Each structure stands twice: as C-alpha cells, then as structure tokens.
C-alpha cells in the first residue's frame, strides 16, 4: 500500500488489473456496474427459482410439492430477493455504468465508497439466504413482514434477516449519496440541469427517495428487533403499542420504494423510444416535472396499502385522493412516450420491442393501480391475486423489461459487440407471451375471490392457476436464453461502432465501443 495514497498519480492510466483481485479492489464505475448487473441477474435467477416452486405448488389444487410452512418461506424470499437483490441492484448497475458516461465525468464522485456499496450486497444476501438453513427456517411472513407475525411469531432467524436488511440499507444509502454527489457535482461544463439526459434526472430523483426512506426502513426493522429481543412493545397493544404502527412506518418506506424501482426504468425508456423513433423525446420539461411530482406525491400515499386496517375515515379519504392524483403525472409520461413515437421513423430492434411492451403493459399495471386506489373497491381487491397481478405488471414488464431494454441498448457500448438480434427478439417474444400468460389471469383470480399467499385454493380457481403456472415456467426458462445471449455477446459478435443506433443522442455515444476503462478524464464541453 502506497504511503501517500491508494495508488500513485492517476496521470498514467493503466487498463484494468489482472486476476480475481481486480474485482475486489476496483474503484472503476464500469467494473462496479458490471458486478452489480451480474449480481442482480444471479439474484433474479435465484428469486425466479423460488417463483417456480410457488407456481409448481399452485399448478393444481391440493398440497403436492411443499408444506405450507415452506411455501410461506418461498413467497417471502421470492419477494425479498427480487425487490432488494434483483431490481434495485440492476438499476444501480445501470446507474454506475451510464451516469458518468452520460454527464461526461471520469467516474462516480466517491469511487471507493462505490465499491463498498456493491460488496455489501453479496454479504447481505449470504446472510439472508443462509436463514433458510437455520433452525426454524427462514423468514416466512411475506416480504412485507408485518408484526406481530414477524416479531412474536417469527422464527429465530428473523434477527439475522433484520441485520441483512440493515446491510442492504447501508449499501443503498451510500450508493444514493454517491449518485447525488456525482450528478450535482461532476457534470461536464455546459450541462445544466435541464440539459441532463432523462436517465440521469430519474436517477437523481430516485437517489433522493432512497436517502429519505431507507433510514425509515432501518427504523422499523430496529423496532422489530427490539420487540423480538428486548421486550419492547412497539407493536403490542398489551404495552400500549399497535401492530398497525409497523405498517405505517413500513409503508412510508414501502411506497417510495416502489417508485425507486420504476423511475430509472422511466428514464431508460425515455432514451430508447426517441432513439428508435428517430425523433426527440416529446415534452422533456414536463417529463422532468412529472418525475418530480411522482416522487413528491409518493411520500403522502403510503396508507393506500392499508385501506383495510381500519384507519379513520378522514385518513382513508385523504390517501385515496392523493393516490388517485399520482395517475396524472404518470399519465403525462405515457402520453409523452406515445407522442414521441407518433410520426417518428420507427424500427423495432430488441431494445425497442421491450420499450414498447413496457409502455403498454406498465400502463395496464397502472390501470389496475388506479382501480386499487378506489378505497371501497379496494376492500374487494386487497390481499387478493388482483394485487399480485397489479404489482407484477408494473414490476415485470415495468422494471424488468426496462432493465432488459437497457441491457440490449447498452450492451454494444459495454462489450464492443452487437448482440445476436434474432436471439434477442426470441427472448423478447417468449418473455412477453410467458409473462402475460403468467400474470394476466391473476386479475381474474383476484376478482373471483382468490386470496394471496395461500399454498392451496378452492376448485373454482384451478383453471386460471394452471394457465398462470404454465406461463411462469415459460417465462422462467426463457431467462436462460438471455444468459446465453449476454455471454455470447461478451465473448464475440459483430463489432459495434461508437454509436450503433442511428437515432441515439448523448455523450455516451461519443466514446468508443467498448468504452475504454477510463473515459472523460478531461470533461468535454457541452453546448
């Protein structure tokens, strides 16, 4: 270790170091981005396998494959892994790779802290997944871990689950601080805020949400920890507490969290649609204001997850109105994307296929969200498969397709090769069909009366459950094709130019493909 600094002067840039230790010791945003993306996909496959267990059990009525206790662990871990291990890290990976390139910065603002943010994730998930093998089993109380099921009645491993969440929180908060400092401080001269690419804008706002709400999550799991281990009564009426207190604090985190999981996708789609429409994004300014409005509103709608807990009428009405209001800026964004396509000059390479599917299917998820916002109607929807359908529509063709679209869009920049377009399109169509088969019937199941988080169901739900399971198996298997496509692209393929997409704009397309290890050591001048 050098006496002065972690290394000698940065004037002579080497390429990356050799060997395994490169990845442990790196401070390079491209390396770290790559690690986040690989970690995220691994978690996606792990969480997906758990979904396969769930759908296998739900293939037919009756208990065939797993016992209810284990089923509850699968539903819980599927949710936790997908939310915290797949979707969030994927977006952070995209942020790491692309933000410095898009704003003309040499790296993130605090590169060492950046690497710490990444490596905390494998650590946290090692602890989380290890709970499955502890006595009493892993977390079995849903990814929303309501008290007192998770406190008084939880397995011994719950304490470890709580600390795993703490570690993830530290990772996210530091990552978000890094993103904000980078965006506010390291933009190339001439790049005012209103000239920033939309992906950068959405990440700036997402980072703000993360810093504001992850500490609240830390607060609620700490209260849980105290109730479990130190005899406090935050969530116990015997001592003057309230189980619903848990839900208020959790969802104060939980609602902004779901926007954290979608805003970066909004940003990426706002790049991809203009590129393949060969037309500027419609309404840049209103897109920025819309994201800001969504983020602000996201802080005052949390109790729409709690319409059946019995909050007083005034509260119920307020949260219903505020929730319905979010439809307005969200709608504005959808109209803007469609207006970008309208009278453009469209081609449908794989990124655009995923982007178009995103717009349609995320909007359908948004519609079911609007239905859920109507509080009295929600009495019939809440905790049924209608909700499961809603959030899978906004998360799968929403966040996940947004991530796929981004991956295909930027793979040439990352690897220097074009991916196999035929295989990409195949991955798209199989995912599209599988996903809709899996989740569209869930709307009907919920409306017909099927509750969530049950391992077995009444006979009238059998047919749609079977269809859903088949779709899920199809969707799951298809993701192995994506793995193949990515590996194939990394190893070789048609050489990609600096700007492989005719309609693309932005600083990232001015550097060669693959992007050199160090870029923009001298910031460019932006007009």
């Amino acid at each position, binding site marked *: 270790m050098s006496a002065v600094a972690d*290394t000698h002067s940065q004037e002579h840039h*080497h390429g990356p170091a050799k060997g395994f230790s490169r990845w*442990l010791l790196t401070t390079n945003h491209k390396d770290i981005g790559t690690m986040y993306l690989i970690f995220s996909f691994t978690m996606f496959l792990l969480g997906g396998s758990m979904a396969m267990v769930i759908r296998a059990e739900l293939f037919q009525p009756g208990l065939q494959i797993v016992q209810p206790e284990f089923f509850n662990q699968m539903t819980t871990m599927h949710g936790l892994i997908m939310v915290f291990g797949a979707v969030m890290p994927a977006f952070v990976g995209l942020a790491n790779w692309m933000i410095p390139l898009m704003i003309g910065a040499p790296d993130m603002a605090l590169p060492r802290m950046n690497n710490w943010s990444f490596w905390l994730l494998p*650590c946290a998930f090692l602890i989380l997944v290890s709970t499955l093998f502890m006595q009493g089993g892993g977390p079995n109380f849903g990814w929303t871990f309501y008290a007192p099921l998770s406190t008084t009645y939880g397995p011994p491993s719950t304490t470890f689950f*709580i600390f795993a969440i703490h570690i993830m929180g530290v990772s996210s908060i530091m990552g978000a601080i*890094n993103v904000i*400092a980078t965006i506010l401080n*390291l933009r190339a001269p001439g790049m005012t805020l209103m000239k920033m690419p939309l992906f950068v804008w959405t990440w700036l706002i997402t980072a703000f949400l993360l810093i504001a709400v992850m500490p609240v999550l*830390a607060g609620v799991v700490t209260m849980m920890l105290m109730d479990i281990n130190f005899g406090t009564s935050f969530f116990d009426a015997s001592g003057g507490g309230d189980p619903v207190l848990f839900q208020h604090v959790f969802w104060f985190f939980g609602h902004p969290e779901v926007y954290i999981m979608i805003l970066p996708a909004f940003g990426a789609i706002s790049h991809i649609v203009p590129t393949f429409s060969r037309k500027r994004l419609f309404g840049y300014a209103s897109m920025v204001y819309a994201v800001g409005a969504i983020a602000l509103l996201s802080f005052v709608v949390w109790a729409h997850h709690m319409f059946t807990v019995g909050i007083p009428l005034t509260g119920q009405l307020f949260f219903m109105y505020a929730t319905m209001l979010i439809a307005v800026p969200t709608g504005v964004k959808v109209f803007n994307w469609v207006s970008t396509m309208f009278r453009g000059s469209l081609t449908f390479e794989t990124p655009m296929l995923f982007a178009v599917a995103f717009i349609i299917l995320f909007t359908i998820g948004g519609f079911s969200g609007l239905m859920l916002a109507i509080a009295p109607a929600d009495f019939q929807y809440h905790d049924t498969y209608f909700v499961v359908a809603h959030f899978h529509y906004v998360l799968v063709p929403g966040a996940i397709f947004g991530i796929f679209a981004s991956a295909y869009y930027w793979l040439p920049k990352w690897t220097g090769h074009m991916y196999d377009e035929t295989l990409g399109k195949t991955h798209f169509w199989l995912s599209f069909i599988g996903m809709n088969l899996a989740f569209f019937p869930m709307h009907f199941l919920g409306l017909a009366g099927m509750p969530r988080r049950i391992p077995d169901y009444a006979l009238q739900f059998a047919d749609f459950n079977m269809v859903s399971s088949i779709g899920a198996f199809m969707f799951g298997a298809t993701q192995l094709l994506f793995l193949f496509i990515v590996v194939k692209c990394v190893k070789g393929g048609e050489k990609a130019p600096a700007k492989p997409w005719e309609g693309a704009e932005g600083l990232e397309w001015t550097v060669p493909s693959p992007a050199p290890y160090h870029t923009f050591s001298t910031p460019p001048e932006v007009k």
Partner: protein
Amino acid sequence: MAQEQSYYVPDQSKWPIVATVGLGVTLYGVASIMVNGKQGESTTGSWVMFLIGALIMAYMLFGWFGSVIRESRAGLYSDQMDRSFRWGMSWFIFSEVMFFAAFFGALFYVRVFVVPWLGGEGDKGSSNMLWEGFQAGWPLVNNPNPEAYPGPNEVIGPWGLPLINTILLVTSSFTVTVAHHALKAGNRQKVKLWLGATIILALVFLTLQIQEYVHAYQDLDLTLQSGIYGSTFFMLTGFHGAHVLLGSLMLIIMFLRIQKGHFTADSHFGFEASAWYWHFVDVVWLGLFVFVYII
C-alpha cells in the same frame, strides 16, 4: 483555457472489501449474540465474532480515513472533490434525520392515536372493550396489560438532568462554532481550547445520560420493557446517545489532528463535517427535550 486540477479517482483499494467483511462479521456476531442469548445458549463464540468484526471495522476506519487524509494533504483533491465531500456529508446527515423521523413518527402516532384509542376515545375507541380498566394518559405508567408490561413507577421529569444536558449540548454547539471561527482565523491555540471544551461538554453529557439510564432502571423501574413509554423513551434517547458518542469520537479525532498540525485556515473540511454532525446531534436533542421530556 483554465487548467483545472483533474478530479482525483483512486486506482484500487482494499478498504471496501475490508469494510464489507468487517461489517458482515460484526452484525452477524451481534445477531448471534441475540439469538443464542434468547434461546439460553452460550454466547461466547458470538461475542468473539462480534469483537473480531469490531476490530476489523476499527482497522478499516483508520486505514480508509487515513488514506483520504493523506491524499488530501498531498494536494490531490480539487475544489470539485471538496464539493463532493460536502454533498456527501450533507446528504448523510439528511439520512440520519430521516432515521430519527421514523422514531419521532412512531411516538406521535402512539400518543395521538393508539393510546387514546385503547383508552376508549376516538374512532377506534371501541377497542377499549378489550382492555377493561385501562385509562389513556401520557406518560403512560399503567399499561393495558400490566402483567405483561409492568409500567414504570416514575418517569424522568424535564427540569433536572435533562435540562442540564440541554444546556450542555447547546453550549457545546456554541463552543464548536467559536472553534471553527478560530480555525478560519488561523488561531490554533484558540481552536484547541474551544474544541477541547466542546469535547468535555460532550463527555459530561454522555456521563449524565448513562447516570440517568442507571437511575431509570434501578430506581424508577423505567426500562425497555415498561410498555410503550419505555420503548419510545429509550429508543429515541438511546439512539441519540449513540450519535453523541459517534460525534464525540469525530470531535476527538479532529482534536488529535489539530495537535498533529493538520488543517489550514482555508482547508479543513474534516473539521467542518464533524461540526455539522455535532449541530445535527444538538438539534435532535432539542426535539427530544421538547417531545420526549416536556410535552
């Protein structure tokens, strides 16, 4: 074209992975202590694990901050880098504010809604039928189920130790500001004096808080298990105390750095960051004083 210093990007570093291992081992150790303890099993191994983790973390803190200090003093940091640190520290403090907000929020919800409901008032007042004889009030000394959660005999009034502690902390915010101005003026003796005073005030605060906790536990029967009053009281004051401890450590390190000749009148961000943190700790205390002790 102005030749601005380029933005420093460190090449490779072991500190992130050391920190990961350290934090993982520490927290896994803490979890093990709790789980094994609760099940009546031996916690020795867990304590060892925790201590090893804590040592790794201490090693990491010295090493990582040490690198940053060395790089800074070697002139590697541009003004832009300085701004990155300022943004970073500001947003970090914001995240800490939100952490406390969760607990203040819990206190608000319990006092305004939960306890009155359990006592029979308001929209969910019918809940009182489950808790015969329970009367709402704050501080809550008689819980709905006194067998499960025997309430405290007494609570801590605001005008004794808490008032002294308020005076100590507010004064310490003042003293650290004087120290800062002295640093900007280049008067190093004055800095040491006023920073030293700040640290002493901080340590006295901590001592008095510990004393108050001992008094609560031993004499007043006011514990974490005393029901929701005890729960919120100790969570808020406890986490505040932990942050005072952290802040004190930061101030002590700044003091040692001043001794070693670090910092100039124009460049002393480490000091400023510590001072900001100290003011944050003070503001949280004022919130506590009003909403936990007085009202």
